[in-house]
């Protein structure tokens, strides 16, 4: 398997850009040298596609293009890019200028694609994406609902540019916002512009960014601009994609923030588990410094801003602002108990502005197009767009950017393509491990996703994780899973979080093992309420949300576990068994052949039976029965 991504272009010899105007000239020169009609193959090298072998595809494509000895005028370019977002169909690539979307490519397909599509101009149907239930395959990126229904602001360049080559980003408009700011905006004007956009922090709390900048800028002393890239929610990878696919958007946003607050030093705190993001960011910083777009005297002005990447050591709690700053200072990553905002006294006791990756990535566009333009997306209280990572029991797993206020129905069914295997949608979990589960069939499918609305129904926006759950999801098990995660990740210094979570995990485990007792639900509520109100940091004060929200909406499921010793969803092994419905069973024998424990018996074309004492509850028969004859009891 190819491991190394090919080299990063060295721009140290290039002349530094010495004025904002010169950047525009440089951009023009770059775009002029690029032919918009030139064939170009963009291979997704985001983490998702890399995991299924896209680096091999990239190498194979390069070799195939070189070997083809193409007689077209322009040599096609094979480009590695950041995440395209459609991770469930990887490895994927797009072919320009036609805008073809090919999915699930193997390295051995490379030669064929080059010969037929690039040289012959032919569309190869077997690589095209066919939406579930549709008859026709879709050829172009714009035709696919997953892409067509999104609004890309933050992810605008992700998947289109080579994250390791700054020239690609500049040609696509990177650092234009910074140039505008340096050419003729005062720090005050920048802050006013951000305030007028009503941008709210994308890390979860949703604090208005402009107000945060303003209060930080008003403080005396050296200011620090810090970017929180410690995205740790299970199943969330929005920030990872931005950092990996378009690092310059984040850097530019940070530089603009630094200019607005009079800071000259920035830090990107990126979790160690994102090695690719660390690489792209480090390369991007070096290249930007080589071109004079970061570092000393940016674009020939008096404004200097140096930034560097610091890696976390694997603690989820370090995404909390005061813990992050402790960790950045080299101390233990535990939240600090201080009633003082980090914009007053944060990193090294200096005024520090901490924002999330996505927040910074929004900034350049707001500066360029104005705050008014930004408010044209989204709702009154939640402006702009938001990236969600759509995971779980949904057809199109991947990254989705939609305007705030889009309904859950649109996200799950419109973009996500619905629930596979004809299952019913049961719940959507938002906001990461400390978020809540929203029950769907009842009433919330048409709620508009935004900061206020989600908090109202007992969940939260969080950083944008969205886990779709079908009818075979046990809500008790889900809350046990999240509590278990939080127990592992709690810092352990304050009593409610440490002891409360331990006790909740113990109780939930007992319930899922069939040992639930009368009074357990009330006890969970009591401890949950205590943990949420008495804890020290943001992790603790939202830690009980998974339990409280599932109890609120799925109390009958808890009761079934405790009173009837039944798991209605068929997840908690001691609490259910399978049975074959003799009415529906056709005796096809699929389940009998599939059963790894040989627990199913029956003659051909006659109803089969399951020997309960042999059954290991692996779900193989249930999943493979075409006639819906296996029931969970």
């Amino acid at each position, binding site marked *: 398997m190819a491991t190394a991504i090919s080299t990063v272009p060295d721009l140290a010899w290039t002349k530094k850009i010495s004025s904002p105007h010169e950047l525009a000239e440089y951009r023009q020169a770059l775009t002029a040298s690029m032919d918009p009609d030139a064939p170009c193959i963009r291979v997704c090298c985001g983490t998702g596609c890399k995991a299924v072998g896209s680096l091999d595809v990239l190498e194979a494509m390069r070799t195939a293009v070189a070997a083809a000895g193409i007689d077209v005028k322009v040599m096609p370019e094979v480009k590695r890019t950041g995440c395209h977002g459609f991770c469930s169909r990887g490895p994927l690539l797009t072919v320009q200028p036609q805008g073809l979307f090919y999915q699930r490519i193997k390295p051995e397909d490379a030669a064929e694609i080059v010969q037929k599509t690039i040289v012959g101009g032919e569309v190869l149907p077997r690589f095209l994406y066919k939406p579930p239930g549709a008859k026709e395959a879709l050829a172009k990126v714009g035709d696919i609902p997953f892409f067509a229904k999104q609004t890309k602001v933050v992810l605008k360049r992700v998947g289109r540019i080579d994250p390791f080559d700054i020239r690609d980003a500049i040609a696509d408009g990177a650092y234009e916002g910074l140039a505008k700011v340096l050419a003729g905006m005062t720090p005050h004007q920048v802050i006013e512009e951000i305030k007028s956009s009503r941008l709210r922090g994308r890390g979860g709390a949703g604090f208005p960014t402009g107000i945060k900048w303003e209060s930080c800028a008003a403080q005396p002393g050296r200011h620090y601009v810090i970017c929180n890239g410690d995205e740790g929610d299970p199943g969330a990878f929005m920030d990872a994609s931005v950092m990996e696919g378009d690092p310059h958007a984040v850097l530019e946003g940070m530089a603009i923030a630094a200019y607005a607050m009079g800071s000259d030093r920035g830090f990107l705190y990126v979790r160690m588990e994102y090695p690719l993001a660390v690489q792209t960011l480090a390369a991007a910083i070096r290249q930007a410094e080589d071109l004079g777009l970061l570092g000393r005297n940016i674009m020939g002005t008096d404004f200097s801003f140096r930034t560097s990447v610091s890696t976390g050591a694997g*603690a989820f709690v370090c995404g909390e602002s005061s813990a992050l700053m402790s960790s950045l200072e080299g101390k*233990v990553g535990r939240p600090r*108990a*201080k*009633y003082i905002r980090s914009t007053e006294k944060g990193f090294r006791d200096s005024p520090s502005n901490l924002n999330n990756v996505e927040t910074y990535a929004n900034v350049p566009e707001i500066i360029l197009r104005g705050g008014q333009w930004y408010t044209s997306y989204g709702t009154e209280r939640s402006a702009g767009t938001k990236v969600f990572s759509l995971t779980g029991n949904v057809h199109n797993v991947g990254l989705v950017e939609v305007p705030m206020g889009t309904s859950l129905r649109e996200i799950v069914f419109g973009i996500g393509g619905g629930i596979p295997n004809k299952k019913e949608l049961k719940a959507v979990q938002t906001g990461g491990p400390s978020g809540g589960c929203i029950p769907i069939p009842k009433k919330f499918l048409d709620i508009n996703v935004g900061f206020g609305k989600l908090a109202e129904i007992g969940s939260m926006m969080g950083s944008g994780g969205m886990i779709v759950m079908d009818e075979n999801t046990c809500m008790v098990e889900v809350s046990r899973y999240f509590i278990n995660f939080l*127990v*592992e*990740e*709690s*810092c*352990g*210094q*304050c*009593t*409610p979080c*440490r*002891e*409360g*979570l*331990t*006790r909740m995990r113990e109780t939930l485990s007992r319930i899922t093992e069939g040992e639930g007792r009368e009074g357990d639900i009330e006890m969970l509520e*009591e*401890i949950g*309420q*205590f943990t949420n*109100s*008495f*804890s*020290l940091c943001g992790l603790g004060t939202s830690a009980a949300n998974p339990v409280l929200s599932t109890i609120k909406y799925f109390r009958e499921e808890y009761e079934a576990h405790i009173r009837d010793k039944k798991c209605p969803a068929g997840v908690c092994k001691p609490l259910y068994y399978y049975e074959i419905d003799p009415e529906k069973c056709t005796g096809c024998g699929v389940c009998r052949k599939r059963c790894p424990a040989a627990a199913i018996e029956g003659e051909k074309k006659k109803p089969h039976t399951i020997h309960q004492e042999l059954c290991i509850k692996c779900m193989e028969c249930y999943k493979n029965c075409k006639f819906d004859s296996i029931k969970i009891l």
Partner: protein
Amino acid sequence: MKIVMDGKEVAAERGQTIVEVARRNGVYIPTLCHVPALEPAAMCRVCTVELAEGRRSRLVTACNYPLRGDAEIHTDTPLLRQNRKVLIELLASRCPGSETLKELAERYGANLNRFPGEDKQCIMCGLCARVCERVGGNVLALCGRGVEIRVDTSFGRLSPTCIACTSCVQICPVNAIRFEDVDGERRVIVRGKEAARVPLRRCASCGTHFGPVIDLGPVLERAGERGVPAFNASICPACSRRNLARRLAERHFEQHAVEPRDAGEES
């Protein structure tokens, strides 16, 4: 600045914490991880109170919340009582023998046996670690994360930097740390596990062991500072007292036996 605590206006200075104000005005707020000499850590959370500043009402820890403007504080509402009860019940599961917890349990009607668990002999107030940082050789610290958090020396080994000042022993509210002087050594024992062994000074006069040998650079440095007596005695306090008494007595008799000296020479 107008501070109203439980309905009564109380005297307070700007910047004082809620606990300081409460103590000054005789209002009871329970604390477990707070001593006035150390910087508050707000770890035990039992001192959480309800605070209304302006329109907002929220829960804050009294030990470290600095009062900066008008505020109304409630220290004993049903919500707080209920949550304190749960807190004590949860803490009791890891430290059932604690007298401090028993007292609090009585006050808040907590059932100490509600959550049976492993006796860890420690309520994780972190006082020992904090006092060790300030007074001792920074030997004890909170190690591990989450449920596994515990007080320990670095890497769980015998500490080479302990000065056996026993501040941790004094401060521990649940008596989980003790020390014993055996065989010319002082052993500091944290929850049954030896944390440090420091040799004791032997009195040059009577031969008993009396205090730890401190030959740690930074500590000696600190001891040499103005106002801090250097600790380099070679005889134990008892002998020292006896010698002083003897000297005084001798001088007394000398003075009365021979002719009186001039006042200037006497010192």
